[in-house]
């Protein structure tokens, strides 16, 4: 065996020799049985080491643990919790703001509607002719509105109730035609406004009972119509007349 070549056998088998040395050693191994046997043994040993070296496998739990630990989002859950908390607070504030805004708008709309009703009531009473159809007969007043308003209604029988029907007039609220009936109880006048409930500008609900500019207002809806009663008399008179009107619609 040539020592000159033997010292290079490892590098030869590891593919680390320069091309010229590789070629020379190739030629020598083919010609030298001793070196050929040595090369064969070393090749077999290299292969055996490769096989034997693959000895240890990581446990799957360990792999999972490392993967969890090394996730780039390692700080994510904590950060996420902070963000989620902030987002929840922001959502809550948003909902509160929306609800408050809605409440304010409704309140302002209600006030505006009540203000309009007061104006209509006062304007009618200030008119030299408060009613366009002066009659205490409900069967005269009701037909008078035919063709003037896009709905109809029934009026109650007032005998022995203390109320007197003075008549009716056509009125408008937010460009919607409606009926205004004027009643008298003792020396007080009561306006009863009737409008379609869903007409433009009429979506805001008035409180069932409220006060506006010292006038008492009561409101109810029935069969798609909104009834608003207003007067400077007390709530009890308005309540009684409301009940009478409601009863009349059910007859």
């Amino acid at each position, binding site marked *: 065996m040539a020592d000159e070549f033997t*010292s290079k056998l*490892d*590098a030869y088998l*590891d*593919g*680390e020799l320069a091309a010229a040395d590789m070629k020379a050693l190739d030629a020598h191994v083919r010609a030298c049985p001793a070196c050929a*046997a040595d090369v064969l*043994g*070393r090749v*077999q*040993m*290299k292969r*055996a*080491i*490769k*096989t*034997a*070296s*693959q*000895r*240890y*496998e*990581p*446990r799957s739990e*360990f*792999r999972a*643990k*490392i*993967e969890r*630990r*090394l996730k780039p989002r390692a700080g994510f859950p904590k950060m996420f919790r902070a963000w989620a908390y902030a987002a929840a607070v922001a959502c809550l504030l948003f909902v509160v703001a929306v609800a408050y805004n809605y409440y304010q708008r409704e309140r302002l709309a209600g006030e505006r509607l009540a203000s309009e009703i007061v104006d209509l009531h006062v304007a009618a009473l200030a008119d030299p002719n408060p009613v366009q159809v002066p009659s205490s007969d409900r069967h005269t007043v009701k037909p008078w509105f035919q063709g003037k308003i896009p709905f109809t209604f029934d009026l109650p029988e007032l005998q022995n109730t203390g109320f007197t029907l003075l008549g009716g007039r056509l009125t408008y609220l937010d460009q919607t035609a409606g009926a205004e009936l004027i009643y008298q109880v003792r020396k007080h006048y009561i306006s009863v406004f009737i409008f379609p409930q869903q007409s433009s500008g009429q979506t805001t609900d008035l409180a069932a009972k409220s006060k506006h500019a010292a006038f008492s207002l009561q409101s109810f809806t029935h069969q798609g119509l909104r009834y608003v009663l207003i007067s400077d008399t007390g709530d009890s008179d308005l309540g009684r007349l409301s009940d009478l009107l409601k009863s009349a619609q059910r007859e």
Partner: protein
Amino acid sequence: MPLFSQLYNFAHWLTQDRSEAEDLVQETYVKALRGFSGFQQGTNFRAWMYRILRNTFLTSRSGSKASATRPLEEEDQEQLPATEETPESIFIASSQKEMLQNALAELPVPFREILLLCDFEEMSYQEISDTLGIPAGTVMSRLSRARRALRLTLSKKLKV
């Protein structure tokens, strides 16, 4: 995860202990992740990872113990007895894989690691040089001595 199984196998060979190998691999990945900005793109990622693992091992308790028990001087021309017989052929014939594994485990860490990097990981001498932080010439001489040491160990085992 890149190189996970290979790194674990290498770590277990170095430490000869599952728990220590797991600690070593975990620390290697943590260090790699922390120092990834320091990794130069275009250089050998595998060598970089193995270098981190090996350095971590050497600074660990078992690593310092292993290197202290068998300091390796490249200039130390330890005269390994010439093996006229052919242990490879005897060994291959007997196909005793376990014996080879035991022989590898008995080798000093510097011999064991360089054989694993060369024959199992099939790293080039340059990669091994980068991983172990030694000159390429030293890689060649250490490999030669590691192989002779392995053959000697096997010969002893076959004689028993």
